[in-house]
């Protein structure tokens, strides 16, 4: 089936899309706070400064470009990569490539506005660009799931909850990457409230991701793909195929359980060490979700 390079493509595409979506969301909260300062619960959004947004958008664009490059090197004829854009069809890969390209452009535009402090760009245009960026980023996250979902004879992939699971995971990875940037680029005192808010947001997304996983399992169980035949009776069903150490340790433990426990501990004890341990785990878990799904063909 697909090479592991496709697992990286899906992971990085989701991560970049997640970052752009989270950044637009944070900026929207910040605008809301500035408009109505009585929303004191959102005062932490002011600690994320323009240079931080600039760095984050550029990082998101770089991640998305890397993702596209990985797909390119996996092609049998990489020199024809532009055919996807010049000979488009209504295929998922074609639409996804446009979405990915659009998200890269949106991230570069918003990153440039923040980096060069382009005040000449009017507020409505900026808001339009942010709305388009958020929509494209969301579409990119969903696309990474639909890419596999489309293959209808593989039950581990053709599960309607797979795109939801991938989208939740991409959001969680996006939040983690933004949190890492805040940790390294915002002053220690100013970052406290921001990382606490991001950690809480990530906990909610991880809970949603766990819910999506449970729903995915229920949908798979309902599909009743217990194929048994004279020759294949020893083969497990799609759920049994997912019950392997890679999925349980790499995704369920590293990507869901441990980060959630550590982020809850961080929210309670306010010790940064908990968050510092949780963030890489979110990234590891995000990757292994794609790695296991790409490799579990049932």
């Amino acid at each position, binding site marked *: 089936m697909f090479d592991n390079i496709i697992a990286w493509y899906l992971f990085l595409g989701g991560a970049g899309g997640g970052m752009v979506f989270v950044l637009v969301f944070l900026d929207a909260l910040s605008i809301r706070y500035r408009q109505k300062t009585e929303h004191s619960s959102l005062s932490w959004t002011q600690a994320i400064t323009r240079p931080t947004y600039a760095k984050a958008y550029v990082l998101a664009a770089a991640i998305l470009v890397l993702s596209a490059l990985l797909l390119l090197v996996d092609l049998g004829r990489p020199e024809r990569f532009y*055919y996807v854009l010049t000979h488009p069809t209504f295929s998922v890969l074609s639409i996804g490539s446009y979405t990915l390209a659009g998200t890269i452009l949106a991230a570069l535009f918003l990153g440039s506005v923040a980096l060069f402090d382009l005040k000449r760009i009017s507020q409505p245009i900026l808001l339009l660009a942010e709305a388009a960026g958020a929509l494209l980023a969301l579409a990119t996250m969903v696309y990474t799931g639909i890419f596999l979902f489309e293959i209808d004879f593989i039950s581990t992939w053709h599960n309607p909850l797979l795109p939801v699971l991938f989208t939740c995971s991409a959001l969680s990875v996006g939040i983690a990457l933004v949190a890492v940037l805040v940790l390294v680029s915002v002053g220690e005192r100013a970052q406290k409230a921001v990382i606490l808010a991001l950690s809480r947001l990530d906990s909610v997304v991880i809970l949603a991701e766990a819910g999506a996983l449970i729903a995915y399992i229920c949908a798979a169980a309902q599909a009743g793909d217990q194929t048994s035949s004279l020759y294949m009776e020893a083969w497990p069903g799609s759920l049994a195929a997912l019950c392997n150490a890679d999925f349980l340790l790499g995704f369920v433990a590293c990507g869901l359980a441990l980060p959630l426990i550590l982020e809850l501990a961080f929210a309670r004890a306010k010790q940064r060490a908990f968050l510092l341990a949780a963030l890489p785990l979110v990234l590891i878990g995000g990757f292994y979700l794609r790695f296991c799904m790409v490799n579990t063909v049932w």
Partner: protein
Amino acid sequence: MVRYGMVVDTTLCTGCKTCIVACQLNGALRPGVSWTRVEELEWGGWPNTQRAYLPRLCMSCLEPLCVKVCPTGASFQRENGTVGIAYEHCIGCGVCIAACRYGARSINNSDSWFYGSAEPAPYEEGSRERRGVAEKCTFCHERLAEGLAPFCVENCITRARVCGNLDDENDPLHALIKQTGAHQLDETSLYYVTGNYPPDILEHVRVAGDLAENPLMQDEEKGEGNAAVLAGTGVGLGACALSVALAAKRSRSNRERGHEREYKRKQPSEDPENT
């Protein structure tokens, strides 16, 4: 209307693989590439064993997923139901290969020729363009248009493969399907005769080969996990333990500093009383 289809009689197939050689020579296939295959199946236990041969090719699905997923339109379906590939438009993304449940497609990334030759033999010239692109059985559509049978059909020594027009009720193929009780394979243009063999031997024309090659599906590796995941998890758990230890230490030193400050704050107020 013309819609080409094929009947494959597994009870007649002897596993001689002449079809593969005929396809390979006439299609100028490169080393390692095969547009048709013959699965060898064995089941039962001594002395009650059985053996069957199961030819596979492009099944010409009625609604081919490989065409639907192609991002450049290189894969297409002809009016006669056969599926083709415009090599000049193919980027070799491999999505169609994942989308083919019969494993009929492949991509050859090697630029080699038979017998290690630096240049292709004259009969291999036609395959120069087929490097890094998806390729598969063409159903010999050009021969069909001329009223000839596909090479695999023409060269079959037992007439285990028969091709015809499924849209024409009077085509001998219909009579053969009725006479042999051939099963239509899913929603494709292929009909298989399984005779006294269990009908589920047809499971093997689906992605069985690909599944068997998948390391996560192999019993000996299943459940053990691969080294990278175990190492990643180990590092993750180590980082967790370290973070908990650091947090505990910091919390303790904060508490101690707090007590110290408390003690120092109280000290001056207590002194006058003592003196």
